């Protein structure tokens, strides 16, 4: 085949040295970048136009809890690369173990987020403009409202879409685990694990940005 390509008188292959699945996942992730750019851009417009709608960091939102959650997601990225490294060596057991760990951490992340949402909602921090009355963390319920409805709307939209991505990731990970349990991946063929990893790390990457913008600034 190489001789054949040489006969054409040009470099051997026009394509990238990347297999289809991986290329497709990267291309898809580019569109995800734009999706979150749209959300972050909206946040910036709204925040600069109405700074009074946004409370100081840590007043309404629970930063320590979310920092802990960020830590969980970073750990889940490590377990994911461990799963990938395992199958690269043909280690089936390691693959399944690390995948399961990633699923557990991902689920924990979503669980913490649900708890966070519930507490915030009980403190009057909701996306609905008319019902918005955030009193801040641990303040008495008759306190003055902190920030404004744009805060609630942007917060829930941005973190909510990220949470949805994590949830979808966990579901896909169950599928990968099921395939792994049937021995679908080998040291030579592990495309499914690799693109799962790409998606998962991307979701982690988005969280790193969102955590900074939404919670800390």
């Amino acid at each position, binding site marked *: 085949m190489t001789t054949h390509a040489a006969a054409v008188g040009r470099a051997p292959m026009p394509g*990238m*040295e*990347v*297999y289809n699945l991986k*290329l497709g996942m*990267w*291309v898809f*992730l*580019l569109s995800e*970048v*734009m999706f979150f*750019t*749209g959300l*972050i*851009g909206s946040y*910036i*417009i709204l925040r*600069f*136009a109405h700074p009074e709608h946004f409370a100081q*960091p*840590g007043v309404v939102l629970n*930063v*320590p809890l979310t*920092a802990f959650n*960020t*830590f969980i997601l*970073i*750990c889940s*990225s*490590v377990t*994911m*690369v*461990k799963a990938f*490294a395992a199958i*690269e060596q043909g280690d089936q057991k390691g693959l399944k173990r690390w995948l399961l760990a990633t699923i557990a951490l991902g689920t924990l992340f979503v669980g913490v987020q649900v708890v966070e949402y519930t507490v915030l909602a009980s403190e009057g921090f909701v996306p609905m403009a008319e019902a918005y009355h955030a009193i801040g963390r641990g303040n008495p319920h008759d306190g003055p409202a902190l920030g404004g409805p744009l805060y609630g709307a942007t917060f829930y939209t941005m973190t909510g879409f990220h949470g949805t991505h994590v949830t979808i990731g966990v579901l896909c990970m169950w599928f990968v685990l099921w395939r792994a349990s049937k021995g679908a991946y080998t040291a030579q063929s592990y495309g499914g694990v690799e693109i799962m*990893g*790409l998606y998962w*790390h*991307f979701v*982690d*990457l988005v969280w*790193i*940005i969102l*955590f*900074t*913008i939404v919670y*800390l*600034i």
Partner: protein
Amino acid sequence: METEARHKHPPYMLVWGVLFVLTMVEVFYAFMDIPKVYIAVGLIIMAVWKALLVALYYMHLRFEPKRLWVLAASPLPLVVILLTFVLFENF
């Protein structure tokens, strides 16, 4: 499919450590008593740094062919364009 570098095992745990430390630094830095601008700029630099670490090591971008770099970087100018124009709107 493989390049030599990846077989040498990328420093996964080291990256994890850096990410962890940076997150801690971010959280403390955010509550320091300095002008908001410094906080924002510092935090964004750290966030981008962390994001780059994830992309380069966990997503293996460091070990991929150059063309994939180009592909992966292609939306970034658009991100910059949208955000700059959007910022302009407010000044």
